[in-house]
Structure formats: structure tokens, C-alpha cells
């Protein structure tokens, strides 16, 4: 049995997934700090600790994410686009389209039946419509981002959040709060805006079920529901959704050790 690790150093969080015999046997998640190299090591160690395994048991470590080259102890580096495709395919083999919304970017990735990337599109320049956008707006509402997922339920009159700029949206949210708007309506408005921008990206590669939603933002139920409403069908979300990139990286490493390409 080969134990492989994938380390995903994102813009916001560092994730690690340990795979053995096609199973995720350990994982870790922590915010990234300033020393990415250390963050990467810590991510691996924590995952090993969770799995109760030793560093020397790991056959291959593969890095991914913006900080993939900071996984200094790893053997390989693959872009997170490839890894999200691979990871989503592993979790939901019928995936045709992956929507990954992380801390700082949004990606729509079209994948083939083998989990290979066929096409992808990413948001340009702006932090609008990403996890960071939600973090900031949640804070403006007085919540942590992990609490707002169920909160939009029961929204009646979603407000129109017109600012696509994260920074300005924050003050728009603040002013809605001051005007006594229901936080549920504000959130519903925010979700609608993000989903709309995400759909625009998904259009670029072509929308085709099954759609798998990955990245930290997929943990937000409100976002998932809004997305499903606009798509008109269900999307796949795994409890491991934030680890999809790390899982994909681990799978790449596994392939490499086994010397085959899926």
C-alpha cells in the first residue's frame, strides 16, 4: 500500500490530504501565514498526526496551489486546476464541470471522463466574488464566514448588492445593516451576486451536469442552494470539498509512483 500526500497551499488556507488505497486517511487545514514553506510542512505533519502515521511512510508528496513551489520537501508540483479536476473526479466520477471558489479566485474547470482538464476559466484581476469577498462581508455583518451558510434561509427580499468591489461591498453591507435590513436578505443578495459571476465563468467552458462545487466556499450552504437554483439542478458537494485540490495532488503523486496515467 502506498501512502501519498497532497499539499495545497492556497491563497488563504493550507490543506493536506493523505491517501492510501484510494481512501483519504488523514487531512489537515490551517490558515496560511507568511512563511509558506513552514505552513506546508505543518500541513503535512498535522495530517500525519491525524492519521497516526510517520513522515517516512509517505512515498510521494505533491504540491499544488499558488504556493506549490513552496512545498520544498515535495517531489512534484501541479497546478490547482489540474488537481481540482482530478480530485473532483475521484469524489464524483461523473463530474463534467468543477466550480472551485477559494479565497481569492474562482475557477470553472471542464473535465473529461478520466478526470483530465479539458478547458478552464478563471476570474480576472478582481477579488470580487471570491471567498475573501464573503469573509469580509460576513465580518461586516458581525459573523464568521462559517456561520453564514444557513443564515440566508428564509430571506424574503434579497437586497441588491451593487458593488462588485470587495472593499466597497463591505461598506454597502454595513450601510444595509445600519438601515435595518434583515441580514438574511443581505446575504441572499451577496450570494446572488457571486453566483451570477460564477455562472458567467462556467458559461465560458460550458455548463453540463454533473457539476461539482469545490473549494472553501462550497462549505457555505447558502451558496450551494443559490447555485442550484440558478442552474436548475443539484450540484455535488463533498464534506471533503475544501480538500479537493490536495486530494487531486495526492492522486497525481500516486499515478506517478505507479507509473501510469489514469
Amino acid at each position: 500500500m502506498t501512502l501519498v500526500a497532497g499539499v495545497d497551499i492556497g491563497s488563504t488556507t493550507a490543506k493536506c490530504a493523505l491517501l492510501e488505497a484510494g481512501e483519504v486517511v488523514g487531512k489537515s487545514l490551517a490558515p496560511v501565514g507568511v512563511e509558506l514553506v513552514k505552513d506546508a510542512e505543518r500541513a503535512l505533519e498535522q495530517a500525519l498526526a491525524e492519521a497516526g502515521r510517520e513522515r517516512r511512510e509517505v512515498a510521494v508528496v505533491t504540491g499544488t496551489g499558488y504556493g506549490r513551489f513552496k512545498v520544498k520537501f515535495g517531489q512534484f508540483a501541479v497546478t490547482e486546476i489540474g488537481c481540482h479536476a482530478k480530485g473532483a473526479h475521484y469524489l464524483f466520477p461523473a463530474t463534467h464541470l468543477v466550480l472551485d471558489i477559494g479565497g481569492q479566485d474562482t475557477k470553472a474547470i471542464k473535465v473529461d471522463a478520466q478526470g483530465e482538464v479539458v478547458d478552464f476559466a478563471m476570474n480576472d484581476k478582481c477579488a470580487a466574488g471570491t471567498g475573501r469577498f464573503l469573509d469580509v462581508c460576513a465580518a461586516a455583518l458581525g459573523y464568521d464566514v462559517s456561520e453564514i451558510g444557513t443564515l440566508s434561509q428564509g430571506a424574503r427580499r434579497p437586497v441588491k448588492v451593487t458593488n462588485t468591489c470587495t472593499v466597497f461591498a463591505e461598506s454597502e453591507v454595513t450601510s444595509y445593516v445600519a438601515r435595518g435590513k434583515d441580514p438574511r436578505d443581505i446575504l441572499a443578495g451577496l450570494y446572488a451576486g457571486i453566483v451570477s459571476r460564477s455562472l458567467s465563468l462556467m458559461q465560458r467552458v460550458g455548463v453540463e451536469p454533473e457539476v461539482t462545487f469545490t473549494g472553501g466556499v462550497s462549505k457555505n450552504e447558502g451558496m450551494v442552494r443559490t447555485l442550484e437554483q440558478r442552474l436548475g439542478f443539484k450540484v455535488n458537494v463533498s464534506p471533503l470539498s475544501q480538500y479537493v485540490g490536495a486530494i487531486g495532488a495526492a492522486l497525481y503523486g500516486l499515478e506517478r509512483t505507479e507509473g501510469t496515467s489514469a
Partner: protein
Amino acid sequence: MITCGLDLGAGTTKGVLLEDGRTLLTSGLVPTRGNPVEAGRTVLERMVEDINLLPDEVDYLCTTGGARYTYPDRHLQVSDITASGRGAVFLFPNTRHVVDIGNQSSRAMSVTETGRVVRFKMNEKCAAGAGRFVDRCAKYLQVPLDEMAPKALTAAHPKTISSVCAVLAETEIINNVAEEVPLPDILMGVFLSLAQRAYILMRNVGIQPEVSLVGGLVQSEAMVRALEQTAHVTINADRRAQHAAAIGAAMLGYARLQKLGTRPTPLPAAVA
């Protein structure tokens, strides 16, 4: 005659009381925290208390700032650009060019000797050029706002930030930290980046001496230095200039009062 100017800004709410449009009696500042009306009332109460007035001894109240219309107990409201121009000339009578950098916006304007705005230009779409950016950097780098300037001024090789986005600029800073750029260099880089953006606005309006900096960023000496370095001009800076718009509003309130001839009813309950 006592007039009050209240500047209900996105970040902070500032107030001043002026006597006869000339003498600054007192000032106050509280964070707005999304509730400008309450912030405005608090500032007013504090100021009145500070100089032992009765609330109805304030003859006229003029609001300015983003929330100027939401504050009910006002006689008049003016735009904060109009007000800052007046306030800048109040503090520095030879001012012909004003740079106003607040929490969410930065502007440059040219003014006449009375402080009337002739031309102005403001940052519109991006928040990257304003105080909020500094606040975020302070938070991220874990340096209290007040300590930023002294540290920044020791920079040897300031590292400016190229990203146009306040949020993405953070990532750039992360990278700088990771690459072990010394903290003062990063900090000074933040102010220089802001200054570069302000400089574009300033040039758009046309720079004429004297130039005065107003708005919250005047609290930071590093900002003043950065601006001087970038724009190659000497800059008037006075810590009271965070209150420039409030001062200007109080002045314009006084002018209006003169025109009316009589004092209007005491602060109305609502003049929506």
C-alpha cells in the same frame, strides 16, 4: 453664533463647533461603525459637553460626508468635497490644492482663496487608494495604526505594491513578508503606493502650491512624506485636518446663517 459641522464618514464621524465661522471651539471623533446617526449624535453630545454648552446653544448644524442625508437633525447638508476645500483653506489660508484621503476614497481638488472647489477628481472604482487599505495592512502586519508611520519612516528600500486591488495587494504583502522584506520597507511601500495613486488624481486636477493634505491619513507622517516625495511638493499637514470637512461644513453653515439673517428654529427633530 455657534455652528456645528458634522462629517459622517464611512470610517469615522467627525464634528467641530465654530464660533462666528472663525474660531474653532472644539472637535470630536468617533468610529462610524455603520451607524452614522448614532455616531453623529455622540460626537455632538461630547463636543457640547466639552465646552459646557446647552444643546440648543448650537445655532446651526450642517452635515457632510457620505451619510449627510441620513442624519435627521440638520439644517443643511453639503458635499464633503465642497466642505474639505473650505476646511483646508481654514487651516492653511494659502491652500490652492487639496488632497483628501479618507477611509474609502481619495480626492484631489483645486480651490480658490475662499476654498471654493474649482476642479476635483476622485478615485471611483477601486478602494486600493484609500485608508481602508492602510487599516487592512495594519491588521495583517499586526502593527497598530499609530505605530505604522514611525516604523515606515525608517525604511531604507521601500517596496511598493503594484496590485491595483486592495484585497489582492494583501497577497502581495504576504509575499513580501515571505521574502523577508524588512517591515519598515513594506510599511513605507504601502504609503508610497497610496501616494502614487493620489498623485495621479492630483495631476489630473493640476497641482498648484500650496498643497494641503486633509482626511484621516494626515495622521500619518509617513503618508505626508510619501506624498511629498512622489509629488515633489511641500505639503501642509496638520493633525486637525482630519476634521477639514467638518470645519468646512460648519463654515458653510455659518455663511448660510448670515444669509438667512435669523437663527432658524433650534435643531429640528427631522429635516429629512
